[in-house]
């Protein structure tokens, strides 16, 4: 496997051996490259920043659910290092071209045209973009019509072209639609700053994958599938209702952030629940099961149709439904689906934009619960409308523009869909992750299985801090393999889960790879990220939740927060 390095100023390229990066993949690779090669104090939109699109270590293989994509850079949103994770066909296509990662370097002169980069088996082509200024769905059609329908794409929408901090990189899904987002942290702005509209991979390439121990790999892969088939979350839960099954449950537990984190329950939860979503999809002839990449055997995603039975959106996740629903007090699922589609079209992060719209509501620009107004405001992003420029730079920026003081961000990144006062270890992770507030930075894992850091008592504050640290390590490891977190963490209930992941790596690469190595992969990745952030100027003072979590309790259970800066430092490797 090679790394493809592209100089966006000179429009030249070179293929490099992995060299010092051998053994890494996914998030471990993006974070190592950024930490080694990008000056921590550079401007994120400058020529000194780089953007790395990397497949996971297991992406070249046939391991189920191993096609998640990592996108890394210095983030224009947080000012720190960022890895943003996405589905789509890109990660599984890169290895067919003999590639593990693509690195975009330098940047063209101001005013240079946007470009399309086409990666074919024997060459890389540079073209002035045929889709500059276009929204992603129209751009996708144009790109495929121009370069071939076999192309798999990564692109930015108008938000990325304008270098806005909430901009995503959109990846094409198994149906060829640009519906999958590397959403968090403004990766689209970095790609846009390098004047790259789209990277296209020729999916007809078919470089053979060599397994060091093919029979051993097949056995490990079979076990991996067996674990997933037998676990209730992966066999039943995720395919049944998708991640939105959590809406009713989290609401019942009083942990569903509502009206910009004022309450833990939303009266309209049932109307936007996973169950209502599934019933609506079924009635309208959509799909209740859909994979974000073709190697997914779980299919937690779905295809949502509008009232007329026409395709509206896909990848309609719990976080999006929470953000545009409960947090804004919007009860209309069709409106929320349209907001999701608009974000995909403009190329902006749904979690960041939902919180941004909450700031607009706090400021009285739009009313709480007014879904149509949210759609109207979202459509301003990526246009010449100055308000759109403000919104597109995210929650903290918008709050500042409108004088709002209730701002749910950590390191400038907006909080996701679980109230940290109710689920404490998530709160610790929001506060201390090098990524800024990020739910996927510390997703659930049975720490008694992983035993990272030994046995801890989570009923004590320091216990939850320790658990959060373990989870952050495990998450970084799984992101580095390219596995889907929803699947990987669910199956950690099964004692075979972690050794099986290590076994797949070992049999594929032929190098010894134990559970300890897996944990070291995650821990070293976090060390890279923390080292970068320290050099970028972050201090322990940045590892805090916003003040209102300290001063307000969360109804209905009236739970508070109460961790000090010093206590939280224990969650860092």
């Amino acid at each position, binding site marked *: 496997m090679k790394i493809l390095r592209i100089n966006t100023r000179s429009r030249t390229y070179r293929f490099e051996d992995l060299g010092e990066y051998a053994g890494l993949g996914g998030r471990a690779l993006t974070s190592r490259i950024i930490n080694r090669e990008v000056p921590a104090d550079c401007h994120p939109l400058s020529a000194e920043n780089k953007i790395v699109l990397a497949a996971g270590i297991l992406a070249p293989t046939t391991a189920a659910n191993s096609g998640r994509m990592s996108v890394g850079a210095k983030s224009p949103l947080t000012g720190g290092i960022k890895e943003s994770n996405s589905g789509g066909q890109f990660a599984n296509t890169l290895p067919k071209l003999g590639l593990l990662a693509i690195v975009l370097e330098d940047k063209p002169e101001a005013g240079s045209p946007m470009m399309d980069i086409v990666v074919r088996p024997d060459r890389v082509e540079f073209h002035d973009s045929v889709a500059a200024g276009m929204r992603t769905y129209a751009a996708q059609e144009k790109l495929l019509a121009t370069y071939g329908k076999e192309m798999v794409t990564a692109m930015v929408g108008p938000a990325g072209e304008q270098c806005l901090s909430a901009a995503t990189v959109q990846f094409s899904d198994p149906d060829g639609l640009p519906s999958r987002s590397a959403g968090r942290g403004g990766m689209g702005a970095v790609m846009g700053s390098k004047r790259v509209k789209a990277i296209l991979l020729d999916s007809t390439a078919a470089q053979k994958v060599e397994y060091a121990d093919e029979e051993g790999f097949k056995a490990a892969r079979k076990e991996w599938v067996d674990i997933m088939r037998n676990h209730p979350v992966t066999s039943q839960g995720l395919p*049944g209702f998708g991640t939105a099954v959590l809406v009713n449950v989290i609401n019942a*537990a009083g942990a569903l952030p509502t009206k910009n984190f004022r309450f833990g329950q939303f009266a309209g939860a049932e109307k936007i629940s996973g169950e209502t979503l599934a019933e609506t999809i079924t009635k309208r002839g959509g799909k209740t099961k859909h994979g974000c990449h073709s190697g997914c055997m779980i299919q937690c995603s779905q295809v949502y149709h509008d009232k007329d039975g026409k395709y509206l959106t896909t990848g309609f996740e719990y976080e999006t439904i929470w953000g545009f629903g409960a947090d804004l007090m919007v009860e209309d699922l069709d409106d929320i689906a349209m907001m999701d589609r608009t974000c995909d079209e403009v190329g902006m992060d749904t979690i960041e934009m939902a919180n941004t719209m909450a700031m607009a509501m706090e400021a009285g620009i739009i009313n709480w619960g007014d879904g149509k107004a949210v759609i109207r405001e979202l459509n301003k992003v990526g246009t010449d409308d100055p308000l759109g420029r403000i919104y597109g730079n995210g929650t903290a920026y918008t709050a500042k523009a409108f004088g709002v003081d209730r701002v749910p961000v950590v390191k400038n990144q907006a909080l996701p869909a679980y109230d940290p006062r*109710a689920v404490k*270890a998530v709160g610790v992770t929001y506060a201390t992750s090098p990524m800024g507030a990020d739910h996927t930075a510390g997703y659930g894992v049975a720490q008694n299985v992983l035993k990272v850091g030994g046995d801890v008592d989570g009923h004590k504050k320091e216990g939850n801090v320790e658990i959060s640290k373990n989870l952050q390590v495990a998450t970084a490891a799984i992101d580095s393999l390219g596995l889907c977190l929803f699947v990987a963490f669910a199956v950690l209930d099964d004692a075979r889960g972690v050794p099986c992941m290590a076994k797949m790596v070992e049999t594929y690469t032929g190098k010894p790879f134990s559970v300890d190595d897996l944990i070291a992969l995650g821990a070293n990745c976090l060390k890279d990220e923390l080292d970068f952030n320290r050099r970028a100027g972050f201090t322990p003072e940045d590892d805090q939740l916003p003040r209102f979590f300290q001063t307000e309790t969360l109804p*209905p259970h009236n739970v508070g927060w109460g961790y000090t800066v010093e206590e939280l430092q224990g969650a860092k490797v």
Partner: protein
Amino acid sequence: MKQGPEVPMAHVVVPRTLAPAFAGLLRQGIGVWLPAPKPVRDFLVEEVGLELGYATHEIPGLFLNGVAVDDWENTLVAPGDEVALSGTMPGLAGIALRRQSPLRSFRSDLTVPFRSAAAVAGMVTLRPFNFVAQQAVQPLLARGVYVSGAELARYVEARADELGACRLMGGEGCLEDAMACWRQVEVVHLQVVWEE
């Protein structure tokens, strides 16, 4: 059905194929009569009518008045309480919210404290979600539940197209005709005969 309050009856014959259309009614909350406070597990088996094996293995999410229940053998349900039930749940919060989850300390502020309850009878609101609603809809409605007359009328009206084949038991009347009557009463006892 144990002795409950004297309320108007809504006895309905429904084709079994329409059972999924009633899952949403369950999710909104239905009333179950509780003769006296009892542990959550016993409530589910004896009053709701779930099989113990099913409740043990298929309902990892158990919430009493919005807080997760771990010790279901000793945590009491009393009249006026709300019990929510969920099948398997993904993600960190999903794992943490399971009964007896290895990560239950994540939500240590959201765990039911021990309490005693006066020995009185009354109604408990039951809210089965997701798979539990789908799987329990037939046995629960066959056994009979209490629902707000206005809610029931609203629910059926909103699905008039789907539920056209339902009819009142022992009569020719269709459901829609009964709506005007149910809408006036606070609570009705809804019981369904599932028709092949």
